């Protein structure tokens, strides 16, 4: 009877619950933010059939080679719009990067 009692009580045991938790933090990327651009201002010269001679003369007087790279008014408009698009894309990309940093780095601060 003793053997039977011990045998039965041992079978009906409650097992201890074990919860395993092991977190290994990922290494931080820590890349430096790119330095903001510092650009040079351009000088635009408008040349028409009326002022062409005067423009080239002025250039020579200023010691600048009398040669100009030209754009039509339509191409100038396209150039302006292209630059605006590049600027917008740059702004969106930088802001996206900031949002990612803000989201993930604030998480890391919270976890620490």
């Amino acid at each position: 009877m003793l053997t039977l009692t011990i045998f039965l009580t041992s079978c009906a045991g409650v097992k201890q619950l074990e919860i395993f938790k092991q977190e290994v933090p990922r290494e931080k990327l820590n890349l430096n933010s790119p330095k903001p651009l510092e650009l040079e201002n351009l000088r635009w010269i408008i040349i028409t059939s009326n002022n062409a001679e005067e423009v080239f003369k002025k250039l020579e007087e200023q010691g600048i080679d009398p040669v100009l790279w030209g754009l039509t008014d339509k191409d100038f408009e396209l150039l302006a719009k292209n630059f605006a698009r590049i600027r917008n894309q740059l702004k969106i990309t930088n802001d996206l990067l900031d949002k990612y940093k803000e989201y993930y780095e604030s998480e890391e601060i919270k976890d620490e």
Partner: protein
Amino acid sequence: MFGSMRMIMIGVMVAGLAGAGAYVMKLRSDNATLKANQIKLESAVTEQKELIENQKIDFKKILDANNKINQLVNVLKKDLEDLDKRFNKKNRDVGKLAIQRTETIERITNGASALATRCIEIASGSPLTDKEKNATKKSEINSECPSIANPNYIPY
């Protein structure tokens, strides 16, 4: 005969008592384990609740970030539309204007070019100057990209 019966009875009683004792000990041990399990479960429930709360906060942050980026895309789109208007407003022909008023258009072009250059610097992360931050009038703003250069300017 009677003696051996008594011995058996005593043996049975001792065995019974020992079994009962072992059973009680086992129950005590089980009880302690169950209590420990209960504490762990309660702790797990609390952790789950915290996790759900954190997830809610994260979802809100994600939504806010999406909204802000969408707003930025829209204001930048408007800047581009404004640029288009400057070239083509009321069938304006910049080429003809440049022939008629060459010096004026050259001055305007150079001014706008300088502003557009500054816009690219700002877009690349250059901090805003106080003048740019405090601009509220049309005459004070960077007309090429007021949405990113002049945060306090409200178009009127």
